[in-house]
């Protein structure tokens, strides 16, 4: 990471956060939210690479319906478990809040840092310790329980690395909680004068709603994995019926966290999309309050629907009926957001920059992901579809096609801000197209696989499914190529990228009003706040090759109510 300091661009600007202090130690002990965000970013992207390699291994095995020489059933089980656990706990949960959120949130607020910088650094090192536990578990025999750790398999059987990875998940949970605490306090206490709740960028509403879930749900995950470790290590019967426990109780505990966790993953993504669509359409976001409140509504409803993961578990039919009914309540705020984004495109001036292409991909993929949730929420059809590839396809459309695509869109949106360089726009668009095509090939076929009855987590399968698996695996290779190109041009831009202007896209929120990359303290004086979706005072500046904002007019428009 220190190599960043040698970029020619950084030497031109005296005081930016990358050059403010130098040396490895200045990164290891940094309290700067931007550096912590960058460290998170590279850690998360590194984990994404490992999780992605696991996915490719799984997909490659599935080219063949029978046994293969080079991968046993146990190795396959470990590969998909590792893929799921890494992607959930090390990648998607921390990706947007901890990496992008850490960097952008205080700047969007015009603050110098988050409320508790030391806690912020601590949460990063908790993430590192959690990741080390996961690596250690691989050396201790790996784990093959699926990322859901269902009992009694996980307590009575399961490979030797199960306890270390559970300890890792426990620690990662605290990393997530501390980030949530930090963000809630920061948003409450560090907003600049003039930034009322309804003047906040929608990304911050989304991060705020996410932080509430992180704080309220994650402790339950911690308790649950702690109980699992106790049962496995000391043979105390909590979930195992042979010792008087109840395996369905584990599922309740697990999904009480893991369903809200789905929204920990998708809500920040939705926040990014609100920013991307407004900025790249150069047009005021449509239905600000409905989008803001729908984030809060999703956060609340997310706690009431966990039982829809358990329609076939043996829980009572009455519970199934109640959970099915409540589940539909989550569909409404999600639909409201999509309609509002659509309406934001209306009469916009849409620039098809790479971040916007990702945002439009998100709309396409999230629409499919959301709609295919309906037959899974409906009781009678879920009985057929539960634990088949239909579920796999559905949650990949939501977790990857939506949450992760939003994260990559946000990364491209804020990359010039984070590192002060522009990436190659041409290759950005090519890569986005490859990812989009590859993604749909990979996962749309899995809807058919699932509704035709192919169960998930299968090492071998009926030959009738092979054609779908071939298309799916082919798609995953195309997607991998897209991500590879992305990695290449992003890394290339760090060394040889064109210098980024302060405001390359024409945004009006505060992060575009400091230099790229931002100075150590973000703002030398507390910035004045207008309506962050009022683009009437934003103009293209030929000399800077970027946009400039007339702050006086911008603030005046907001206080006169014209911007709204």
């Amino acid at each position: 990471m220190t190599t960043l300091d040698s970029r020619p661009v950084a030497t031109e600007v005296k005081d930016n956060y990358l050059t403010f202090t130098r040396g490895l130690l200045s990164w290891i002990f940094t309290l700067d939210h931007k550096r912590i965000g960058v460290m998170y970013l590279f850690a998360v992207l590194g984990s994404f690479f490992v999780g992605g390699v696991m996915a490719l291994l799984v997909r490659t095995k599935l080219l063949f319906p029978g046994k293969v020489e080079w991968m046993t059933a146990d190795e396959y089980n470990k590969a998909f478990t590792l893929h799921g656990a890494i992607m959930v706990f090390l990648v998607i949960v921390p990706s947007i809040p901890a990496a992008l959120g850490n960097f952008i949130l205080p700047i969007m607020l015009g603050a110098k840092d988050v409320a508790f910088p030391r806690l912020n650094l601590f949460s990063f090192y908790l993430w590192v310790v959690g990741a080390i536990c996961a690596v250690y578990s691989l050396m201790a025999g790996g784990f093959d329980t699926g990322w859901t750790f269902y009992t009694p398999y996980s307590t009575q059987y399961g490979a030797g690395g199960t306890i270390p990875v559970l300890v890792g998940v426990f620690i990662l949970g605290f990393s997530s909680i501390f980030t949530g605490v930090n963000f809630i306090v920061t948003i409450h206490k560090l907003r600049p004068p003039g930034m009322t709740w309804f003047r906040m960028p929608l990304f911050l509403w989304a991060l705020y709603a996410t932080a509430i879930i992180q704080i309220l749900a994650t402790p339950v995950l911690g308790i649950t994995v702690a109980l699992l470790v106790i049962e496995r290590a000391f043979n105390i019967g909590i979930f195992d019926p042979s010792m008087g426990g109840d395996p369905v109780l584990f599922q309740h505990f697990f999904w009480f966290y893991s369903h809200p966790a789905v929204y920990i993953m998708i809500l920040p993504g939705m926040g990014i999309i609100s920013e991307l669509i407004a900025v790249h359409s150069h047009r005021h976001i449509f239905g600000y309050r409905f989008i803001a409140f729908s984030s809060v509504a999703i956060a609340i409803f997310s706690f009431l629907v966990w039982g829809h993961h358990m329609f076939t578990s043996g829980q009572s039919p009455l519970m199934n009926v109640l959970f099915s009914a409540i589940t539909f309540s989550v569909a409404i705020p999600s639909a409201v957001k999509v309609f509002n984004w659509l309406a934001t495109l209306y009469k916009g001036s849409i620039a098809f920059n790479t971040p916007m292409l990702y945002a439009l991909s998100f709309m396409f993929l999230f629409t499919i992901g959301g709609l295919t949730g309906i037959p899974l929420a409906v009781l009678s059809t879920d009985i057929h579809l539960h634990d088949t590839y239909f579920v796999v396809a559905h949650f990949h459309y939501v977790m990857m096609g939506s949450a992760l695509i939003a994260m990559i869109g946000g990364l491209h949106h804020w990359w010039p801000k984070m590192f002060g360089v522009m990436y190659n726009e041409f290759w950005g668009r090519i890569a986005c197209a490859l990812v989009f095509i590859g993604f749909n090939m990979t996962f749309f076929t899995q809807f058919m696989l699932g509704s035709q009855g192919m169960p998930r987590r299968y090492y071998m399968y009926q030959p009738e499914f092979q054609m779908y698996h071939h298309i799916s695996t082919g798609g995953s290779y195309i997607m991998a190529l897209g991500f590879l190109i992305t990695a290449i041009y992003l890394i290339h831009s760090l060394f040889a990228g064109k210098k980024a202007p302060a405001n390359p896209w024409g945004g009006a929120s505060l992060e575009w009003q400091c230099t790229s990359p931002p100075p150590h303290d973000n703002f030398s004086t507390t910035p004045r706040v207008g309506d962050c979706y009022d683009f009437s005072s934003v103009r293209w500046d030929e000399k800077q090759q970027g946009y400039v904002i007339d702050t006086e007019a911008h603030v005046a428009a907001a206080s006169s109510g014209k911007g709204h």
Partner: protein
Amino acid sequence: MLNMIPTLLSQATNDPALAAGQPVTPKTFWLPEGASTIAPEIDWIFNFINYINYFFFVLVIGIMLVFMWKYRQRGREVYARGPNHHTMLELGWTIIPTIIVVFIFFIGFKGFIIAKTVPDNAYQIDVTAAKWYWKFKYPNGATSDDLYVPAGRPVKLVMRSEDVLHSFYIRDFRVKQDVVPGRYTSLWFQADNPTEGEDFHHIFCTEFCGTGHSDMNRKVFVLPESDFDSWVVEQGRWLDKVTDKDLWWKAGPQLYRACASCHTLDGSVGTGPSWGNYDGTGDVWERTKAGSTHKIDGGKNLGDIIGSGKEYETPEGYLRESILNPGKHLVDPYGNVMPTFKGQLSDRGIQALIDMMKNLDKFNKDGTVKPDAIPNAGGAAGAAK
């Protein structure tokens, strides 16, 4: 809503979907063939939701594409004016989807109640799941590895697991239920059309259960009711089908399971004397054949009653008596606690047990046959010769 459940239940039992003679619905782009009476109901809901989804997908993506084209950025013009909000529009796209999903919930709910309401005359089959096989047990005690069911009759499966979670799934019947250790779960279905010849429906395990998870699939054969009745009787006579030379390892261990709770194989103390060597007179066959000093009847030795001219001409005769009339001779110091197996065990069954005793060295201590001792399976193939 809850007080509607009884109404729906009564409707469910009169539902036309349950009428006999449902034809098998063919495989479509989305769904596999539907071979149970509830499949048409579930398929109808699935397809109905699909059409709603197609509509909304085309609507959203269509509008998106039109806007993308119409409102693409031209030149460097930046600021675009458009409405910021529209309350009626917002309320409209909140309320209309709400009405649609409430409706979808109710049709799904109704289908679920039908799928959950077991008809009174259901034929019960007990299912045991274990890593990594299914075992089916019929009311007459017959067992099978694949599932055989009568056509045109509701079948209820009562399921338990011996180890971890499993999930029982017959995709062509649209039924699925987790099988949970420590409790019984159940599901039911009715298949009206017999499977032809080699045809069958797949059973898949759909809850991850370890190494052999994807091997845990079996077949369902639907037989015409009269064929099924004779099949299940035949299956109950499994013992007759085992050839004489295979009795010792195919039938013996199966029958021994009933003995195992009292008679160990490793010489350790149980409710009854171990079949293994526990007093230095050899295992059960050796000590009986040798007419050994093994003490019975408060002082006599086995040797006093077995042998030519004595009470039992052959050791087999003594063992047979001990199974059918266990109280006649009591091994010291055991009391008279064993029930008689008269009427429960045929002569052929007794033969199987005695054959097993004769080959006790080829068994593991848990009563399973050692793999390398199985005839024609390699290893000590000569065992049965």
